[in-house]
């Protein structure tokens, strides 16, 4: 198993948000996490990344127990995180953003960046722009590209389609599908966009009140009742 989460508890101060999450993701698999707003989707990813202190349970990455590791160590161990809101560096150029992603490189980072840019040709002509001057969709592509510069084995994506124009949503789906093939990336996707999650996920987990309550096959997303029960408030 690439990622094994057992009975994970986490809290913001004294307010608990995860009440024992258990799931596992095999290498090369991509898992979508669906749930209403406030059910703990983002908190789950933050806990997996180490930003939300765990109050119980274990997180295993590729057989090592990373439960108590700080975020930078998890990143070095192979977890790539693309947070909600993208979190690029707005005051750095696109190129410098990408270079910041090359934390594991000890030598020149040029070749790594060039190989990532091959996957994201749209970024090539934007290299000297400031990150903050990009459109939301371009920033999302940059955030994913920057994450790939760290050569992750496991990619955590938090609502990558939020507030992004449809043309770029399609582009993101296409890129990620290709990366899944070419780099055998393992992914955990948190999303509310059903098309997105159906197109990329091998399995879909439903999260309710801080617990994983059900697993459904991607095909079942056509069922309107199921969708109404588990997906964001706007539907």
């Amino acid at each position, binding site marked *: 198993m690439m990622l094994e989460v057992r009975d994970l508890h986490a809290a913001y101060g004294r307010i608990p948000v995860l009440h024992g999450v258990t799931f596992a993701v095999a290498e090369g698999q991509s898992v979508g996490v669906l749930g209403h707003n406030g059910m703990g989707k983002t908190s789950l990813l933050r806990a997996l*990344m180490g*930003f939300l202190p765990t109050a119980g349970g274990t997180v295993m990455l590729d057989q090592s127990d990373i439960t108590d590791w*700080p*975020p*930078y*160590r*998890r*990143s*070095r161990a192979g977890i790539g*995180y693309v*947070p909600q809101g993208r*979190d690029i*560096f707005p*005051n*750095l*150029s696109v*190129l*410098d953003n990408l*270079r*910041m*992603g090359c*934390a*594991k490189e000890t030598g*020149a*980072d*040029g*070749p790594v*960046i*060039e190989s990532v840019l091959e996957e994201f040709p749209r970024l090539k*002509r934007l*290299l*000297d722009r*400031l990150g903050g001057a990009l459109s939301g969709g371009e920033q999302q592509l940059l955030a994913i590209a*920057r*994450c790939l510069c*760290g050569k992750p084995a496991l990619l955590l994506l938090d609502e990558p389609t939020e507030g992004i124009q449809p043309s770029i949503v399609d582009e993101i789906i296409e890129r990620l599908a290709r990366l899944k093939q070419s780099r055998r990336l393992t992914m955990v996707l948190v999303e509310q966009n059903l098309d997105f999650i159906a197109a990329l996920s091998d399995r879909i987990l439903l999260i309710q009140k801080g617990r994983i309550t059900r697993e459904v096959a991607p095909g079942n997303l056509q069922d309107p009742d199921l969708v109404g029960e588990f997906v964001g408030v706007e539907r």
Partner: protein
Amino acid sequence: MNARSRNGALNGGALNGGTWNGRAWNIAGLVTVGVVGLAAMIGLPLVLELSSLLDVTVYLILAILALSLALVWGYGGTLCFGQSAFFGLGAYAYAIAMFNIGESTIPFLLAIVLPAAFAALLGYFMFYGRISDVYLGVITLTVTLILFNAVNSTAGPEYQIGEARLGGFNGIPSIPPLNWPGMPDSALDLNDLFYVSIVLLMAVYFGLRWLLVSRFGRVIVAIRENEQRAGFLGYDARLYKLATFTLGGALAGLAGCLFANWGAFVSPTIFGLGQSAQIIIWVIVGGRGTLIGPVVGCIAIQWLTAFLGSAQLTKASLAQVVGPTVADALSSVMGFADLSNTSLILGAVLLAFVLLVPRGVMPSLLDLARFLVRRRPADALADKAERAT
């Protein structure tokens, strides 16, 4: 420098295309500083008398101190209120070691290593103890004031380290000067000290420029921008902050060593609140996020302080400028019959800077220069063409 000019030194060939503009600015800046520095090094001893050259020397020494905070605060984002602690430790370490050893190679190195070690220790507890920015300022300020009080109360003859009497509030007088490494008989005279100071200032400046375009420099800027983001990209923010803080301590110690040489004297006021505040003011006026800014800010403010101190700005001389009525009003409002209060005027200058040029002089000037260059029609066209492709 802002992000645009930081793009400068790139390593992948094909990646260079888009950032030529940033690189051109960078090179222009480096060449300008190099030329001005060399011109000052060659020219100033020819045109200035020794006493004026001595005044310039102390500006150069303090500019190294300004650079240390430019790194720690301007780039690293750690507002250290106690940079003078490392400056003072450097000066005292040099003085004490010099009386005991007599040959300056080891005292010179100690003046760098000891403050760096102290910064590393203090920084370890602050950064690894997850002290927030505000408390970090309070702690560094407190530490330098503790040093001030501790050294201040060592006046008695029992406070002696080897051959060196600490002297308490009297300070340590007649500190032996630096000599060329390994040659105890060839001490540096005041001319030599000028050359050593300007060479070291340029070395520190260019060294930091190099450091800041390296991966290390990019990471500390990223951590300043957002520590959490740097964390999930795989950088240990605490380690980078600690390294930056330690390097800042080392550079402040180097400045302290030169300062002890300059006056052949060091006293506890070097740890005082005034000294600490001054360093921050240089950086604010010159501009955070640049290196040349704090150097210019430091030299300009030190010069202004010296000028005001000697200019004897009295009510009578003020009356000649603003008229007798205003001068009367000013002096009665402020309760000063004599307006030669340097701190008062410096305070007004600082207030004006914080309110009118909040980013500091150099970032504003650089932006103006870029704006003027960009306005040239040929460039505007090229810019448009670049965007269209």
